[in-house]
């Protein structure tokens, strides 16, 4: 009874990889870089990600769901691919560990000022090892359960229906913002992660629904971000948004129930589910890449080694500011990767097709 990653798994996996702590500051970025009606930028960025996913879809169609490593191995000699795979491994593991560290830092900021980030991160990384060693099918299943555990949070937006004011909106679009292009690249980090689906291709259910399910996952992320950012624009004024570190958390802090308040603390804890899937998928992809270099290595040992080394690296950035700076540069590279790598694969596949045609002739 062979397991497969069904379309629903892929959709929710993409949604879980994309959604992360960047969502907390997205409204601030939209206000800062795009200014009035900055929420529209979310739809534009979602559209850009969708175009990128189309490129991935083309790769998938051209190679028939084959592994990207197999595609590269067909055209490139091993002495060329090995350094590329090593770079992939290091880069993906690095992004994974920094995303995890960022979550831990924010948690420490809002709830545990005196706790040791070292211990919190070590505990978090143990959980990542526990997840990644279970394999991609179980990561997909875990993503499905976790997404159900956090999707209900969208309904919390109804709690702001009384405080939402259309008066806070403006008829002007994208005024009072600055560095729009740089901001767009920064904000695109919130959508990044879907490119990891390139590594999942050989494990997915071989159906045409595959790319549609990736698009649906991206659409879910876009709509979720859009609803949070849109409500934030109607809840806070533009100037308020610009100076708030995490507008979404501040907004959630307004929710009061008869027996519990300051819900942002608890709700932020729920984000752990999405962060663990995001980090887990980066580490899993890093392992996939490393496995090409060391095909005989024990997979579980490899996972432990990669997580351990990336844990040591994650100790280096001390403050949240330093960490976010490192992450910013890493995500620039990731954005370039998410567009460049599918294009590179399409090029390789075209060359392979042409040489096949020539060989047949």
């Amino acid at each position: 009874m062979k397991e497969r990653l069904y379309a629903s798994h892929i959709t929710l996996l993409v949604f879980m990889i994309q959604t992360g702590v960047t969502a907390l500051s997205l409204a601030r970025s939209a206000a800062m870089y795009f200014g009035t009606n900055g929420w529209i930028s979310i739809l534009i960025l979602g559209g850009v990600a969708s175009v990128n996913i189309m490129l991935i879809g083309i790769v998938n169609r051209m190679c028939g769901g084959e592994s990207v490593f197999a595609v590269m191995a067909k055209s490139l000699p091993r002495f060329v691919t090995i350094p590329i795979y090593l770079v992939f491994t290091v880069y993906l593991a690095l992004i994974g560990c920094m995303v995890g560290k960022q979550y831990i830092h924010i948690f420490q900021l809002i709830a545990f000022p005196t706790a040791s980030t070292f211990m919190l991160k070590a505990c978090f990384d143990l959980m990542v090892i526990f997840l990644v060693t279970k394999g991609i099918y179980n990561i997909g299943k875990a993503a499905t359960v976790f997404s159900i555990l956090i999707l209900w949070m969208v309904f919390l937006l109804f709690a702001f229906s009384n405080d939402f004011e259309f008066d806070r909106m403006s008829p002007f679009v994208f005024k009072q913002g600055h560095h729009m292009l740089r901001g767009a690249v920064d904000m695109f980090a919130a959508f990044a992660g879907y490119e990891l689906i390139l590594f999942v291709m050989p494990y997915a259910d071989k159906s045409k629904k595959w790319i549609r399910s990736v698009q649906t996952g991206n659409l879910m992320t876009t709509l979720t971000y859009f609803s949070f950012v849109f409500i934030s624009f109607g809840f806070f004024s533009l100037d308020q948004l610009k100076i708030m570190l995490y507008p979404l958390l501040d907004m959630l802090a307004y929710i009061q129930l008869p027996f519990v308040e300051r819900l942002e603390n608890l709700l932020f804890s729920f984000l752990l589910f999405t962060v663990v899937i995001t980090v887990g998928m980066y580490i899993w992809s890093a392992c996939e890449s490393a496995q090409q270099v060391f095909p005989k290595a024990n997979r579980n040992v490899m996972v432990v080694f990669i997580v351990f080394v990336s844990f040591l690296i994650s100790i280096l950035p001390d403050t949240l500011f330093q960490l976010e700076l490192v992450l910013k540069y890493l995500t620039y590279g990731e954005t370039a990767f998410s567009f460049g790598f599918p294009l590179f694969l399409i090029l390789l596949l075209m060359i392979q097709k042409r040489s096949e045609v020539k060989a047949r002739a």
Partner: protein
Amino acid sequence: MKENPAPSLEYILHEFDQCVDLIHRKFPLLAADILYFDHLIDKNELEREILQPFANVQADEMGPLLSGSPFNASFNSKEIVLGILKGDAAIFHDSCVYLVALYGPSNRSIEQSETETVIIGPHDAFTESAFTNLSLIRRKLRSSHLKVIQLSVGEVVKSDVFVLFIEGIVNMEYVNEMIKRIRDIEVDIISDSNMLVQHIDDYPNTIFPLFLTTERPDVIVSKLSGGRLVVIMDESPSVISGPTSLFEFFMSPDDYYQHWVIGTATRILRYIAFVITITFTAIYVSITTYHYEMIPENLLYTLIESRSRVPFPPVFEALLMEITIELLREAGARLPSKIGQTIGIVGGIVIGQAAVQAGLTSNILIIAVALSAIASFVIPSYVMSASIRFVRFFLIILAGIWGNFGLMIGISVIVIHLTKLTSLGSSYITPIAPLKVNDWRDIFIRGPFWMLKDRPSQSRTRNKVRNKMKR
């Protein structure tokens, strides 16, 4: 002596040497001997099938008599020994041996289940006799498609195991897998199906039950018709059903005997109980240790007043009370019911009240712990309820270490663990992963019968439709 010599009275008597309960009756005029265990046979059957016919025949008529029914000739000593142990009488005549099935020891009569009670619906429960259990199932499921395969487990003591399924509905891959697992068992003795289930589990180290065990025939009939297979073990009142998902343990037959709205409400109540059991005390520990800001001002005064005299950190306070509750539960379960009630009163009221007055614990924690304990008993399956109570301790400790973060780490670990689990190779968290939204109408709610058209997807049956009615 040879391991399996030709059957003879001497050999069989040697095998049962020092077994005073073995009855050896001699019929010198007929040149016949009978061996049997008095307590394993039905004496009326013995009288009717053997003693009366023997009284009415001469020595030369024995041959024709023994060639007919119910006398079965046996030429294997091991088979004869096993037959006597199973309640057969062995007749030795003219160097031939015949077995007559007379099994009929006194059994517990069919009674109400004490662990799985329902308010409405049938009240009969399985007994220790596999044949009585088979009869209870056959009476409710009168179909020639209900197939029964007999196997045996145990190297030293062979116990009968029956695999039941409905042909045409069950996926035979599951049946073959189950038969293979039962045949692969190499243990000296398995005395109960709850032990058997631990030998056929996909993951023996998990604390979650991977097969549903029940004492209720109506549950088993519904599982069989849903495309599951069933395993009955002789001398055990618990019957196994598989493949199983986590959510099946939250279903009760009552849900189907009541109106669907009431059934749905009760089922949702059980899921709420599940959440309360797992998290309530842990949330108390988390909030009172690290996140006081989450408590509204009015409630905060009460809480602080309640906790002001308690000298321990909340995690110790909570563990102390949780362990006390577990002690009370265990003591109540081991004692006769009348004394058990007294234990409940002494524990619940006296110790609880005294603990608060002595300043060992706060009132609010007593409420939290009691609520968690009550909620755990709402879960219909005792085995699942015990697993969940165990998990609760893990979450309380994590909440005591890292507050909400620890709580979420704990929940994540449980979810990741659950994703790995399978029952007979199918996902344990079906229908969430793989996502089968159609199944949700009979898992998270108890939809009206017109809505429950298909068999559960976990059964992987080809015969999917079970209800063709429009309403």
